[in-house]
């Protein structure tokens, strides 16, 4: 299972401290395997529960849900901290100890550095899994805002004609979805009535951005994919660069170089293109947002202009 240590087979006797490294590494791998399993078990049990609580929590701010959600994340962080503390205490400390004892010139020094690399690679795996579960848990907060929006629209249709002036009894049309309280004057007797939107309608301004983002998520993903390409192309080019070191054939070298140039050109393109895609996304998202809450348009456009400065 821990193949990297086996390559020493057949060489001269290994130093006696090697068994300690080996044991620590084995324990570390087993320890993380157990934490991985625990994390998975906990998250897979918690996710359906969270979804159910979100559905059944009738508090406007979903506060019961948020308490459970925060408690679930707390346990995940607790597991992560346990891994981090153990890594420092049981792996790094051992590594530092031997690294200071064994000269880098010693033929056995690679045992020390391999120990560290193997352990830290395994640790990174664990961290990636932690991030994965954390994201899965984060997703339980997502609600289909279209449903909530539709309810608000339906409610508006139902109430827009049903109010009468409290002074003269004349019918007062509610001309749009008001986000907050407002004065509306009676078209007949001109009395100033005060209209207070329902709790549900007031919530529109709080879900509007989320809904707009939900509707334009495909554009955001296009931007993100492009944005991530820069690193990928950089690494690809870097790998090719390394492969040149052991190559002496001129023809092959030229081929590699032209591939590298090509990658660099692509990289320069995405560096310029990603912000453009970001802007396309933002424009579309703000347009959508403005459609949902036209009353916030003036403010939103200022926010959009500010955001453009930072692309």
């Amino acid at each position, binding site marked *: 299972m821990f193949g990297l240590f086996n390559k020493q087979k057949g060489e001269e006797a290994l130093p006696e401290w090697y068994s300690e490294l080996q044991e620590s590494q084995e324990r570390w791998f087993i*320890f993380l395997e157990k934490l991985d399993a*625990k994390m998975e078990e*906990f998250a897979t049990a918690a996710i359906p529960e969270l979804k159910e609580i979100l559905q059944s929590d009738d508090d406007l701010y979903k506060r019961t849900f948020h308490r459970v959600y925060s408690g679930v*994340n707390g346990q995940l962080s*607790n597991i992560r901290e*346990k891994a981090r503390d153990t890594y420092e205490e049981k792996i790094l400390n051992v590594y530092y100890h031997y690294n200071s004892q064994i000269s880098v010139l010693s033929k056995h020094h690679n045992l020390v550095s391999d120990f560290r690399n193997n352990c830290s690679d395994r640790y990174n795996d664990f961290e990636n899994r932690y991030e994965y579960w954390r994201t899965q848990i984060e997703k339980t907060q997502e609600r289909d805002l279209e449903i909530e929006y539709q309810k608000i629209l339906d409610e508006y249709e139902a109430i827009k004609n049903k109010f009468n002036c409290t002074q003269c009894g004349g019918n007062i049309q509610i001309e749009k979805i008001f986000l907050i*309280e407002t004065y509306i004057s009676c078209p007949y007797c001109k009395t100033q009535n*005060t209209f207070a939107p329902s709790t549900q309608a007031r919530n529109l301004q709080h879900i509007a951005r989320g809904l707009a983002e939900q509707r334009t998520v495909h554009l955001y993903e296009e931007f993100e994919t492009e944005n991530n390409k820069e690193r990928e192309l950089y690494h690809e080019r870097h790998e090719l660069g390394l492969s040149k070191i052991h190559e002496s054939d001129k023809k092959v070298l030229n081929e590699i170089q032209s591939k590298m140039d090509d990658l660099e050109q692509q990289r320069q393109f995405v560096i310029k293109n990603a912000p453009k895609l970001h802007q396309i996304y933002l424009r579309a998202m703000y347009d959508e947002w403005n459609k949902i809450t036209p009353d916030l348009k003036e403010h939103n456009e200022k926010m959009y202009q500010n955001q453009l400065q930072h692309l």
Partner: protein
Amino acid sequence: MFKKLFGSLTGDNKTENQNHEAQTSNDNFKNDYENEDQEVEYDPETLHGTHYSVEDFDNEVAERAEAWIADERASGENLEDKDIQNIYFNYRRAVYTEWNNCDSDQMIRFEHANSLKYSGIQTSGFVKVEDNNPFLEPVHGVDLRTYTAMCLKISAGIDYLEVCKAMGFEPVIWEELNTIWPQRMGEDTSFTVTTLFGQYYAENVTVPQLENLKAEISEEGAANLEKIRTDRYFYEELAGARQAAYEYGIDGAQWILDNFGINIADFQSVAMQWMTEQNQNWNSENIMEFSNYQQEKQKEYAAKFAAEQGGNIADDVNF
């Protein structure tokens, strides 16, 4: 000495008193400043050394930065605005440290005091407000200070209708205020509105109309509140406990209210007060000390909450 240096920064007596409180409550640390930077005298407003002029300083920074930029461009580098800003930023640090022969804490205090000038962003504790800032124009006659006072009352648990009544207006107005002031905070890229709101919040401002509205507070709560205001360690303990509570599915704000009688408005106000104080008297050693203390306390409370819940789920996994 640190009172003299920083209390006079704003010319604001309130700030001076806060510093004084901090000084008396953190006896362990107050000596750290005593012998520092003795040779250099600093302008209380700009924190520049008084042995040179601000103009000379800015010129020196520009000269070095432009030389570097020219060099970079000559070697084919494509510099963007943010690279240029970074180059200036770094030379400002270098020249300041060199000319004043100071440590990094003094340099950071200098950066805080000049953040608006050099980076266009306000820093709590050093807010500079120019006249006629459109973001600070009153909304329906209500200025930011009054709006903050209303927010303080409402988050302390007083019904917003009561607050509106005391202010002499209908809830319609409050709803407009509570939409427009947050919008301005979002729009203002210098963060003047937000930082000033935070400063008023830290000062627990009030206006004459609201003076008779008092949130209920128990005797014990009042004593605890006074204690977190004056004893930074006690504040850090409660901040750590609050964080731990959230991690165990407990609403930290409610937990603080139940166990210490302090409402969220007062707690946040004190948090802002310590943050402002920390910015003004930047000292990395103190900051480390308090942050470690908070973490330590958070762990203690986490262990307590975990025990109440029958332990953590990974308790049985061992190395």
